[in-house]
């Protein structure tokens, strides 16, 4: 995934050529533009919404907007920040509309079943576990955590994408981590005990 998260400010001659081609109505230029930036847009959407099908829809929406805005995009600058900003806004709108059904279905199913093996969680299980806790956070906190920890963006980059000050972003990261930590603790406390763990002393069998 080379360069997709880091090339935020560097001018890119190839993207300039593609943008110029799009302005001239060259369909091949738009197709090349799509394939060049599809991955960064998809990763951004997936990081925020955590669901593949929705992320793919958001990718479509983002590129439709890019095509509609081709005349105003500056060829001298990388289109990545613009694309990420549009993608984040689309993802946030989606999360606000669907805030009560954001946990992955397999996680909901899994959470309802008792665990049969004690000990450290499996890798995939941990991911789902953290993902479901992340999905319960308020959208602004979830967004900054996703941008910071899933997409590895700097505070300045997140501030530019969200149109917020760096101190607001820092504050949200701090609040988000605290909330996430508490969600995980609550989840751990409410988790069904493994079936082969003996009941605590004094508890009825």
């Amino acid at each position, binding site marked *: *995934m080379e360069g997709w998260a880091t090339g935020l400010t560097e001018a890119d001659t190839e993207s300039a050529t593609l943008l110029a081609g799009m302005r*001239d*109505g060259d*369909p*091949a230029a*738009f*197709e090349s533009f*799509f*394939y060049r930036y*599809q*991955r960064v847009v*998809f*990763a951004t959407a*997936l*990081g925020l919404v955590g669901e*593949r099908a929705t992320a*793919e829809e958001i*990718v*479509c929406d983002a*590129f*439709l907007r890019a*095509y*509609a805005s081709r005349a105003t995009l500056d060829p001298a600058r990388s289109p990545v920040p613009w694309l990420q900003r549009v993608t984040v806004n689309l993802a946030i709108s989606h999360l606000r509309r669907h805030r009560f059904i954001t946990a992955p279905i397999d996680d909901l199913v899994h959470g309802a079943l008792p665990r049969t093996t004690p000990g450290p969680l499996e*890798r995939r299980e*941990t*991911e789902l*576990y*953290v*993902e479901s*806790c*992340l999905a319960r956070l308020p959208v602004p906190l979830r967004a900054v*955590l996703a941008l*910071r*920890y*899933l*997409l*590895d963006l700097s*505070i300045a980059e997140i501030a530019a994408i969200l149109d917020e000050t760096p101190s607001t972003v*820092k504050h949200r*990261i*701090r609040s988000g*981590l*605290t909330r*996430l*930590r508490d969600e*995980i*603790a609550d989840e751990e406390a409410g988790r069904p005990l493994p079936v082969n763990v003996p009941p605590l002393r004094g508890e009825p069998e």
Partner: protein
Amino acid sequence: MNPRSCHRHQDVLTDLEAGLEVGGRDADRAHAHLEGCEICRRRIEATALAIVGLGRLRAEVEAAEPSPTAWEQLQRRVIGEAAARVAPSRRRMPVGFPMLSSLTAALLLVALAIPVSTGRSAAPQQLLEPGTRPPAVVSGTDGRLPVELVRPEGDGPAPLLFELLVSDPVDAIQPAARARAAEDCSATDGQGDCSTGTGPLPGGPRPT
């Protein structure tokens, strides 16, 4: 340890764990507090675990491949949106709407009366022969949306095919439409603007 003191250092400790910038003196104080505070140590450990969990999610996001059919999906969306853009314009009421609606009603009555007088059923569903497509079917893949209209009069449905050229997205994205436009342009002996591929297209002038 005094809970008030814990509260004072909590934000700084979280910032340190999150890798955010913290002033040197604040960091030293927070570290000193952490040495003797079991509660804060546990909280920081829990925060670190949450960050580790996020790191694992990150690996998953980075490894995720976009759908191989994403470009086709985008093309379908473009065509769908273009069709949707055409449809609402038909629903828009013109200024002389009451007069036109009366005229339409009169024409409909005439259209229904003709089959009745010739002994044919006037039921709307029978105006179409079996196997024919309903009127105003919108479809298209090459930048134009052929709209098929079916005339009720006559021996059978005589489809009238119109091509509605939708605005930019479809014809600009679809190479076939542009290739055809270029051909048409050369066929019209330089009347169109061949350099941009916006020359005249069969079926009428290009809508703005």
